[in-house]
């Protein structure tokens, strides 16, 4: 059977187990911290504040024709999905090593470990989206396009699981992968059209942004979340194609690696 379909079947078959253990993963993540679950809300808020500070105060850039609130929503719409990606990719690198006991003691199907990670990341993303929606309601910037958000999240789920499979796999194969990935993601954060529009930059940066696959994820989300502007069909189609391709590729790769997970202990 195609590994990608097998992953989807496993997810369907173990959906209760996945949800239950996702909850535990969240508890574990914030266990021992003073503020506990508050960090789920505080984390994206703080990150957004830093980002806005850099663009609004340090570089004094705002999008053309946008109010401060409008710009905040604009940035947020790109930042929330990108943060989710960043977090899932970053955590994937050390994922198998940290969960080897699950693999060895047959507690959990190994292919669900990256899926579970994406689910925990999604919880953070939902919080971010909720904040965003509150801001949008406040600004009166809502449109019919918001109805496409669930579809967009499904596509992003495939996108994230696919990259998590790849990153987890490379994390096992190359012990140094995690460090490299960390810096690379930081670079991507600035080379992705989060604080600016794709069309607003020129020259070399323009090419990089156009070639950057994550630009399409950001633009696709933004065209759904920001009321103004047209629905960016082109970005959504490219994003969807990339998500499916990543998912199929990642599943196949992880499936191939599965037999080697414990060998690499």
């Amino acid at each position: 059977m195609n590994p990608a379909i097998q992953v989807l079947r496993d997810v369907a078959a173990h959906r209760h187990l996945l949800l239950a253990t996702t909850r535990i993963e969240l508890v574990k993540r914030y266990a021992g911290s003073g503020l506990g679950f508050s960090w789920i809300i505080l984390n994206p808020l703080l990150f957004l504040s830093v980002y806005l500070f850099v663009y609004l105060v340090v570089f004094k850039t705002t999008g053309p024709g946008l109010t401060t609130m409008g710009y905040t929503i604009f940035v947020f719409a790109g930042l929330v999905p990108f943060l989710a990606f960043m977090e899932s990719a970053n955590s994937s690198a050390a994922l198998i090593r940290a969960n080897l006991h699950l693999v060895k003691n047959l507690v959990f199907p190994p292919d669900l470990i990256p899926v579970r990670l994406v689910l925990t990341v999604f919880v953070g993303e939902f919080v971010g989206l909720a904040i965003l929606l509150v801001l949008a309601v406040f600004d009166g910037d809502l449109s019919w396009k918001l109805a496409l958000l669930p579809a967009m999240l499904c596509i992003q789920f495939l996108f994230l699981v696919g990259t998590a499979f790849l990153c987890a796999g490379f994390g096992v194969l190359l012990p140094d992968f995690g460090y490299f990935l960390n810096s690379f993601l930081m670079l991507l954060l600035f080379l992705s059209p989060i604080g600016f529009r794709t069309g607003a930059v020129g020259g070399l940066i323009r090419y990089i942004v156009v070639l950057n696959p994550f630009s399409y994820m950001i633009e696709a989300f933004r065209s759904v979340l920001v009321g103004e502007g047209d629905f960016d069909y082109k970005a959504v189609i490219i994003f969807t194609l990339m998500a499916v391709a990543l998912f199929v590729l990642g599943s196949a790769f992880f499936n191939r690696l599965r037999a080697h997970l414990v060998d690499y202990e």
Partner: protein
Amino acid sequence: MSDGSVPDADLAIRLRNLRKVYRLYRKPSYRIRDVLGILPDNPRYFDEHVALHDVSLDIRRGEKVAIIGRNGAGKSTLLRLITRVIQPTSGTLDTRGSTQALLSIGAGFHPELTGRQNVLAYLAHFGISGAQARRTLEEIIEFAELEEYIDQPTKTYSTGMGMRLMFSASIMFVPELLVIDEVLGVGDAYFQGKSFERIREICSGRGTTLLLVTHDIYAATLLCERSIWIDQGAVLIDADSPTVLKAYEASIRQQEEARLRKKAFLSLRRLADDRSDLIPLLIELRCPDNAPHVGGIGFARIALYRGDVELGMVPLVGDLAPGDVGGSIVAEGGTWGEIIEIGGRQAREMKNFGSSMHKVAVSFLLPRELAGVLDELSIEVETASAVPYRLTAWRIGQDLDNRGIGEIAGEAADWVTFRLPLAGGVTAIQSSAASEMVVRAAETHGSGRITVTGIRLLDSADQETFQLVHGEPASVVFDYQINDPELNDDCQIVMYFRRNGTEDIARVYCQALAFDGRSAPKGQIIARFDRLSLGSAEYSLTSLIAEKGYYEEKQTIFYSINPKVYWAVRNILDFKVTTDHYIPQGTGVVIETSWSVRPTPTPHVSFDHADLPDDTISSDVALSLFSAKDAVILASNGGLTVQTRPSNFAYALSTPALAREDVAIEPNVIVIEGLLEEGAVSVGILDADRDEFVASGPQQQPGPFQYFLAIDSLPDRYSVILSNHQTAKPGVSRFTLHRVRLARREPLVSEIAREERG
């Protein structure tokens, strides 16, 4: 199924030619390329390590199987394949049913979460939540006995506490296949026992199949009726647990022996200053089956020859002349003793105690040009012993293979020279310690300071038996012999009663019994149970005698090579316990035991003819008496051999003068049992004070004999005499006295009537 031995439906696991090869890549990048499937299948990129060679196994549903073997033998690989954590390189694997694996423990707990949260998290992984999770949680906390700490973060736990909680959580499920890898030793002894019971409980459920990997082979055999011994990635033995256990125990000594042998070779190399023009050669003289020989054997000369040219000799009684390329004695892993004198000649003694390996070894460093012609060499051994001896000789070459080159054996004290060609003629035995063991599994272990020559079970009437009755008195009698005259200390004796040869039912041990190798080198150890508390079953007795403190302290050295163990034999005696009332199986028992040592009086051997040479009779004479409770007095020495010479025809063997007070009853019959091998014998009871016979029996034809001598009254002091005095027939006589019994035969009615008339 192809071989048709077990129907498919009964199988829990079926392996066919399962093979696992690990690749050891020459560069890390090759590993990645291999995972990605872009590495050519070419050995220049990787070495292959075969962790498991084409293993085929059938494991039935509900079967409990222990997998034993050394580190790196492939046990864990096998378990990981069965649990599908890793994929086989080739072969097929079928399993059915749910699997619970305990392959590693201790990981997976989040240090910041409390014990309770961690357990709930663990349970959630099995889809257990809500009320069911809370119930299971309570059971787990209770089992782990961590009630006080359960709401503390696990980072505050000690390692043992965390392990206990993890283990408790893991064994709350009853899967169809339980796979446990080396995790039984969690926690303290108390918790280990409890865990063990829990696993036994899980497995007692019908249909739960258990695969257990452990280094505690005794625990394994207690739980598992079947054991699979894996060595170097292949199944060495797959049989019932007692058989495998016996083989495994014997192999541990073989391995130790192999290790020491290797060490001897290494030191030889060092001796040769790494000269590549020299090759080492070891010659070993071993006791058959590693059983200590009867007495000291003297070696006056061991030399190596090529044709008639002496190549070198071993300095047995002195130093080598400098520059002489000769041999040396290998001190470690053998029983070389001091320099002694036999018949006016100096010799190096081979003791019958002092090492768990009953052998002596010598080594030679030979010029390399001899490597091709080793078969043309021969070894000359000049030896003498006061007692009969038999040793097998082995040649061990550079590649550590063992080749039998013959045996040396003798009976008389005369010096004998043996010439053994190194070509041998005996088939080579494989060098793997394990395989060697399969060929010849030795039964006796221990350094031989004390050995036991016989064990008997006595019932309430002190009759020898193999069937005891629950609740009645019983005794175990050991005939001991101290080989090391320097032994003068307390020793410990342990008896293991194992049901059906495996299940540990009771252990009885004596903390301290005093032994003295000089004043009482022989005698009996008597363990008496006033009330035998073993339930009805068939038992095997395993026993060992060890240094003081052995049983109370944790021993890090396996008993078969532990120098503190003087003597040990597994399953030496099988017996049955019957009962007339119901005793539940598995009932724990406490056996109150009184121990005593009864040294044999120093034996006297007297001869009619004073000029009889000393060497005609074995000094190995022992005869003892001990009081019986009521009816019968038993004297037994377990065997005493007398050999005569053709030139002397009138001599005898007598026991020490025995006192009448030793006897609790007034006997009227003496029963004398023995074996006449050759010649003739007659027996008599001699009144030691008046020097006249009170009873005597006729001469015998060869074969077992049993005399019933009627006596009117027992003299105050008397001896039992065996002789060929009355035969008047010169010739060789050999006879053995087994046992003397004094008994009271009930008088016949006519005799009573006669007494009344008198």
